[in-house]
């Protein structure tokens, strides 16, 4: 099924959103986790991202960007709010109704243990992420998309809705700042 077909199906029946969720939840969650390094916040931001996407799916139309890029854009905006506010979010996961809350919390806990274990295997990444978090958000965004997610410049420019020239300049300045920060550690 093409993205356009999936989009049409979702617009006709919101329950079809489950397909989109299945395809993109894991990569989007991974992106958010590699930005924050915190499981609880990542789970909440990811839930916010997909709820936001579901609510605005009817206004989404192909204007040169794919659904995947659009989801990354929503997640990036949610992350921007998260880093800007620098306080605990009003957690959607705690407010949303689950058929079996206890089971969901158990699953969430298992995932947290698993991912925190996984994170501990990447010492160098933890150090770089720590340094990256001290930089302004604009550098944080471009560097994580380029070096953590492996996106090319065209895709990053689409996600951040900026031209490639600005992106290249941000990347080069950000990289230099990050190198200096990492050298200090």
């Amino acid at each position, binding site marked *: 099924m093409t993205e356009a077909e999936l989009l049409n199906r979702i617009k006709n029946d919101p329950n079809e959103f489950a397909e989109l969720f299945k395809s993109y939840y894991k990569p989007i969650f991974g992106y958010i986790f*590699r930005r924050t390094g915190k499981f609880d916040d990542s789970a909440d931001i990811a839930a916010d991202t997909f709820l936001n996407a579901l609510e605005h799916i009817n206004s989404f139309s192909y204007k040169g960007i794919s659904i995947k890029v659009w989801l990354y854009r929503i997640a990036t905006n949610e992350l921007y709010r998260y880093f800007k506010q620098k306080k605990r979010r009003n957690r959607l996961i705690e407010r949303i109704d689950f058929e079996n809350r206890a089971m969901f919390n158990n699953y969430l806990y298992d995932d947290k243990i698993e991912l925190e274990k996984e994170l501990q295997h990447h010492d160098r990444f933890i150090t770089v992420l720590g340094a990256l978090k001290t930089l302004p958000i604009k550098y944080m965004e471009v560097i994580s998309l380029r070096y953590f997610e492996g996106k090319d410049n065209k895709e990053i420019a689409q996600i951040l809705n900026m031209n490639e020239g600005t992106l290249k300049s941000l990347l080069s300045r950000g990289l230099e700042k990050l190198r200096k920060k990492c050298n200090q550690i």
Partner: protein
Amino acid sequence: MELQNFENNLIKMTKPEVSQLKHQDMLEAAIVKARARSAVSWWWLCIPMYLIAALCMKTFFMPGTTLISNMAELTNKESYSSILLFLFLPIVLMIISAITIRNAYTTSGKAKNVALLQKVWLNVIILIISIIIIIIYSL
């Protein structure tokens, strides 16, 4: 050169990968379900609007009558229907609207959010109209 090396190190550096997320399926079901949809449509709003419009027209075109006296007249003539129209129906509409607003608030979680107001404005109008009808009926 130093920057080039640093960039290469960043590219080669291993990153944490998300292999499996147990909570994914339950969250997916909850989010699709949690999508705030208004249970009250324009059709529902038409019923109290029609009643108010009819009574207002009668008050306007029949000299010497008031909205309250017209409602009282209808109540005397059609006691069961009037209870249904002026009490039962507004209460049901109020409950539906209140639940819808609560659900919308739960999912958006921000009282000052403009998006929340855009979502529930119809429910707020129905709540207000229902309260007005009940007050007039009780007088």
